[in-house]
């Protein structure tokens, strides 16, 4: 049942810019560095002995922001696909459980963001090669910097999807999203328990790998909370 619904949801998001955003996000993150290194490559190479690590940390400066912004945009866009003609009343009258409907929406977005993370890895590597940062390529770190923020952002995805799918006025999720983005931007100064800080992977209290587990754990928890709330609501 979930398979059928997923195929249906992937068909619905055609021509709505979902895939475009999935490509633009990681492209933009690496593009920032093409500008950064394009303007002052010599200066940047002098900042560290390990050019690859330094480059990765530069890329990762924008990854959390792009992720959270992407989540805000994609969740709101996902809601607008059904809200535009109130297709909810047709969707929920299908012979599927409301839980499956919610799971399908979440899965589609989680898949898109996973693709974005994969692209981020490829773009990061590609531009890194081009910059000629040395032969000692830290592949493991490239993978970590590409996928850890994604997993750490799952709770953010869960909470923003929840808000977007139950809000009649999409101004609400987008405003909440702006707050989330600013929290991510200021994450350095913020308490570690804030989920918007996690994609930056700089919580002092734990290893990055622990944040990954926390991301999965709280992601599931917030997902369940959102789903249960969605299920008990009437479709008007």
């Amino acid at each position, binding site marked *: 049942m979930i398979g059928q619904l997923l195929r249906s949801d992937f068909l619905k998001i055609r021509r709505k*810019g979902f895939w475009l*955003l999935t490509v*633009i996000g990681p492209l*933009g993150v690496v593009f*920032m560095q093409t*500008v*950064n290194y394009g*303007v002052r490559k010599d200066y940047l190479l002098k900042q560290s002995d390990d050019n690859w690590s330094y480059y990765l940390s530069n890329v990762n400066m*924008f990854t959390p*922001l*792009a992720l959270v*912004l992407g989540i*805000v*945009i*994609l969740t*709101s*866009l996902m809601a*607008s696909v059904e*809200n*535009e003609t109130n297709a909810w009343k047709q969707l929920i009258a299908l012979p599927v459980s409301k839980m499956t409907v919610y799971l399908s929406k979440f899965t589609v977005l989680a898949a898109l963001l996973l693709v974005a993370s994969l692209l981020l890895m490829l773009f990061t590597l590609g531009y890194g090669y081009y910059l000629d940062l040395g032969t000692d390529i830290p592949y493991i770190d490239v993978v970590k910097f590409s996928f850890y923020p994604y997993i750490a952002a799952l709770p953010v995805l869960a909470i923003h999807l929840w808000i977007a799918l139950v809000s009649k*006025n*999409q*101004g609400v*999720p*987008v*405003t909440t*999203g*702006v*707050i989330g*983005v*600013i929290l991510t*931007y*200021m994450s350095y*100064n913020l308490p570690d328990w804030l989920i918007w800080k996690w994609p930056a992977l700089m919580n002092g209290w734990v290893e990055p790998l622990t944040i990954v587990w926390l991301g999965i754990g709280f992601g599931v928890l917030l997902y369940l909370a959102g789903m249960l709330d969605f299920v008990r609501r009437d479709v008007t």
Partner: protein
Amino acid sequence: MLPVLFVGPAIALMTGLMSNIAAMETEMNAWYLLLQYMILPYALLFLPLMAGVLSGLICRYEHQAGGWKQFLSLPVTRGSVFTVKYLLLIATVFAIQLLFLGAVYLAGTVKEIADPFPMMIIWKSVLGGWIAIFPLVALQLWMSMFWKNFAAPFAVNVIFTLPSILAVNSETFGPYYPWGQPFLMMYTGGASESVFYVPWDQVLTVVGGSLVVFFAAGWTYFQRKSV
């Protein structure tokens, strides 16, 4: 719409309260220090992004259930509808700026800043940030009229706003980047002998120029929009 006004000032207040200005050894008036802390997330991200959210909200009723049709069948010209919506938006942003000023004062009072409150210069910053947002509001109003949903105009907004994090650090590129202007015009470290914190010709060309382009484009689009 009202609670939305308080979001930014609240974020700024939070930033201000979290800052540790007492620990800074400096000759500078402590208010400036505080202001610079508070401006960073507020002017760099919040104001430009919020310009988009507000534009979306102001077009929301018209997008629902064919409201444009009803609205435009009233004896009003399309040009005046666009202009009134635009004026409402910048008035709203002005209110947010005043609340921000209040947040600065509140944060400073809580932090027990002893230095005199530099009224003149904070006004400069508040007014400057307000003016710098004019073109961005025009662009976002256009985008919000074009798209029914909130997400697409927001995506456009994000794509242009995010690079200003880098742009404002660049002396060559920054002054020409419209989305970086709210920060540059609010940032008290700028050229203080001018009317604003950025040179007068930068205000005229970059802010004024982009305002003319975005407003004209949005206005023209709305004239031709089929409802």
